[in-house]
C-alpha cells in the first residue's frame, strides 16, 4: 500500500487557498448542526456523515498547509498566512468536536433523554419536517424557493427516496415526502411547516428575484 496519494487527497491540493478556507469554514458550520441533528434524531446516517466530513477536513487541512507555505514570499506574507492557518486549524478542531459529539450515540437512547430536550430549548433549533404531496414546494429547487431568506430556516439535510443529501446545493429539487432537517428559530419553523404541510400556498416574496 502506501502511495502518497493515500495520505493526501490530490484534488484538494488543486484547490486554491481561498477555496480551501471557504470550504473549511462552511464545513465547520454545517458539521456542528449535523452533529446535533444526529443526536436529536438518533440517526446513524447523519452521524456517519459527520465522520466523513471530519475526514474531509483532514484532507483540507493538509492541502491548506501546503498551499499556504507555497504562497509565502516574504516575512509579512508568512505572518498573515500563519493567521490563515490558525483559522483553518480552528475550523478543523470544530469538526473534531462535532465528531466527538456524535460518539455520544454509543450511549443507549434511554440514558440520554435529556439531550434532545436541551437541543429543543436552544435559541436556534434543529427540527425536521416532511413535505406533504399537497405542498406546492414540491418539484421546486431550494434556490427557487429561497427558503432561508423567506423563513430563516436553513436546510442542513434532506432525506428522500435516494437517501440523504447533506448541506444541499440551491439546485436540489424538493420531492413529495422528502424529510428536511432545518436549523432556525421557532417562529421560522412554524412558518415553514405551514408550507411543507400544504396548508398554505407558498408565495415567495420578491426576495429571491428582486435585484
Amino acid at each position, binding site marked *: 500500500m502506501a502511495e502518497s496519494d493515500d495520505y493526501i487527497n490530490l484534488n484538494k491540493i488543486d484547490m486554491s487557498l481561498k477555496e480551501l478556507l471557504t470550504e473549511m469554514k462552511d464545513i465547520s458550520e454545517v458539521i456542528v448542526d449535523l452533529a446535533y441533528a444526529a443526536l436529536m434524531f438518533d440517526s446513524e446516517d447523519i452521524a456517519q456523515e459527520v465522520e466523513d466530513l471530519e475526514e474531509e477536513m483532514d484532507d483540507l487541512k493538509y492541502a491548506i498547509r501546503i498551499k499556504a507555505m507555497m504562497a509565502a514570499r516574504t516575512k509579512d506574507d508568512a505572518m498573515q498566512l500563519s493567521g490563515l492557518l490558525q483559522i483553518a486549524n480552528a475550523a478543523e478542531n470544530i469538526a473534531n468536536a462535532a465528531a466527538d459529539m456524535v460518539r455520544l450515540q454509543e450511549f443507549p437512547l434511554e*440514558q440520554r433523554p435529556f439531550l434532545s430536550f436541551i437541543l429543543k430549548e436552544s435559541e436556534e433549533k434543529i427540527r425536521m419536517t416532511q413535505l406533504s404531496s399537497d405542498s406546492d414546494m414540491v418539484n421546486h429547487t431550494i434556490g427557487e424557493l429561497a427558503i432561508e431568506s423567506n423563513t430563516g430556516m436553513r436546510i442542513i439535510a434532506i432525506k428522500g427516496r435516494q437517501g440523504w443529501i447533506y448541506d444541499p446545493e440551491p439546485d436540489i429539487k424538493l420531492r413529495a415526502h422528502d424529510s428536511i432537517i432545518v436549523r432556525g428559530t421557532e417562529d421560522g419553523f412554524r412558518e415553514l411547516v405551514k408550507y411543507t404541510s400544504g396548508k398554505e400556498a407558498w408565495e415567495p416574496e420578491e426576495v429571491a428575484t428582486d435585484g
Partner: protein
Amino acid sequence: MDEMERKLLELKNTSELMIDLAYSSVLFNNTEIAEEVIFLDKRMEEIADEIEEAILSMEPTKEVLVKALVLLNLKITIEKIGESAASIADVVIRGFSQHPVISMSLMDSEVLTERVEISPGSSLSDKALGEIRLASRCGMFVIAIKRGRRYIYGPGKNTILQEGDTLLARGPEDGAEVFRKLASGKMDYRDL
C-alpha cells in the same frame, strides 16, 4: 429542565454565538468583537466549572453516573467548539488576519455576515427584535448590535433597535440584500 441542563444549554448557546462572532471579527478585522469572543470563552469556563460542581453533588447511583458521563462528554465537546472560536479571535487580536485571501474566503461562504446601519425612517427603529422577526422574515439572525461605542452581543427578543444602531447579522446572500433595504428604509418589514 434541571439546573445542570440549563447550564449546558447556556454553554451551547454561548459556543454558537462565539463561532458567529469569531468569523465576523475576522471578516471585519474587528478587535473589539474578537475581545468579546475571548471574554465569552472565560465565561464558558465558569459555566463548565459549575457543571462539574453540579455533577459532583449528585447522588452516585448507576443511572446518575451514566447521565453524568454523557453530560461531561457533551460539556467537553462544546468547550472545544468555544476554544476553537477563541483561537480564531486570537488571530484578529494578534493582527494576523489581514491576508486578503482570508476575507475573500469568508465572503464566498454559504453563510454571510452582513453589517448594516439603521437609517432615519427605517421601519426597524424603535421596534423589538421579537416583533420584527428578522430571521423568519428575511433569514437574517442578529448576532450583535453596535450602539454608539457599545456593543450588545447576542441580543434577545426584547432588545429594541434604535436609529443609528449598526446590526451584525448572519444569513444567506438574498436575505442580506433585503436586510440592507429594511435598514435603509427602502423596504418596510411589515410588507414581508
